[in-house]
């Protein structure tokens, strides 16, 4: 469980950034070089590389270097095992729990006042 939470935390952290979401979005269509990925962003290459490294550390992407070109691709296994479908389910149940909590607290407060 702890291991799983660690993965989730990392994945959520990685996805909380718009640049990294855009990179994942692009890689969802297939592998791409770092140069190609960096092109849409007005950002120095070292800054962009930090995003790539974080995604790689989280296990969301894999990279391989061939000559001077580093190619990135989504690690489908990570998404498959932990995120996609499961993340969606989690969001549903988390939201439900949030609302249940609010409802139960409000109902209790109302009862205390009356």
């Amino acid at each position, binding site marked *: *469980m702890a*291991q*799983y939470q660690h993965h989730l935390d990392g*994945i*959520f*952290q990685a*996805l*909380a950034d718009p640049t990294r*979401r855009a990179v*994942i*979005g692009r890689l*969802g*269509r297939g592998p791409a070089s770092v140069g190609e990925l960096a092109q849409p962003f007005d950002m120095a290459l070292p800054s962009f590389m930090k995003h790539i490294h974080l995604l790689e550390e989280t296990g969301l992407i894999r990279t391989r270097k061939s000559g001077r070109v580093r190619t990135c691709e989504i690690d489908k296994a990570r998404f*498959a*095992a*932990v*995120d*996609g*479908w*499961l*993340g*969606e*389910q*989690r*969001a549903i*149940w*988390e*939201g*439900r*729990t949030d*609302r*249940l*909590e*609010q*409802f*139960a*607290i409000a*109902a*209790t407060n109302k*009862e205390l006042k009356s």
Partner: protein
Amino acid sequence: MTLDPERDLEITRTIKAPRSAVWAAWTNPASFEQWWVPAPALCKVETMDVRPGGALITRISEGGSPFGPHLSACYLEIDPGKRIVFTNALVGGYRPAEQPFMTAIITLDDHDLGTAYRALVMHRNPDDQKMHRDLGFYDGWGTVAAQLAALVEN
């Protein structure tokens, strides 16, 4: 119950309300309708027969559309005030369902602040995820990622 990280979800929360209030929110149809689906969608409880073998059927209306199917499940265990187990692998009266998907175990315990709440949701298999992907998961990825991010940022 052992959690399988490939298939299960566990949500735990301390709710600052007594167990009786949380139990009522789960077992009173008018209350249940108020939190079961996210606003602005509306929920209607069609059947809530809180006993083992009893049906739990909810309907949903999104964007003002007519109410359509949402959940059709069967309660498996009821320990009043403490525990609810239900599954949509069965419908009311323990009859097998068309599309089994999950079993949920809701546990309420006393806590200094109110209620220790735990929802364990078990799914059939990780292959359901593959099906989801084949249905265009990667095309919809931007949306899913944004939703996930919104979840953590809030």
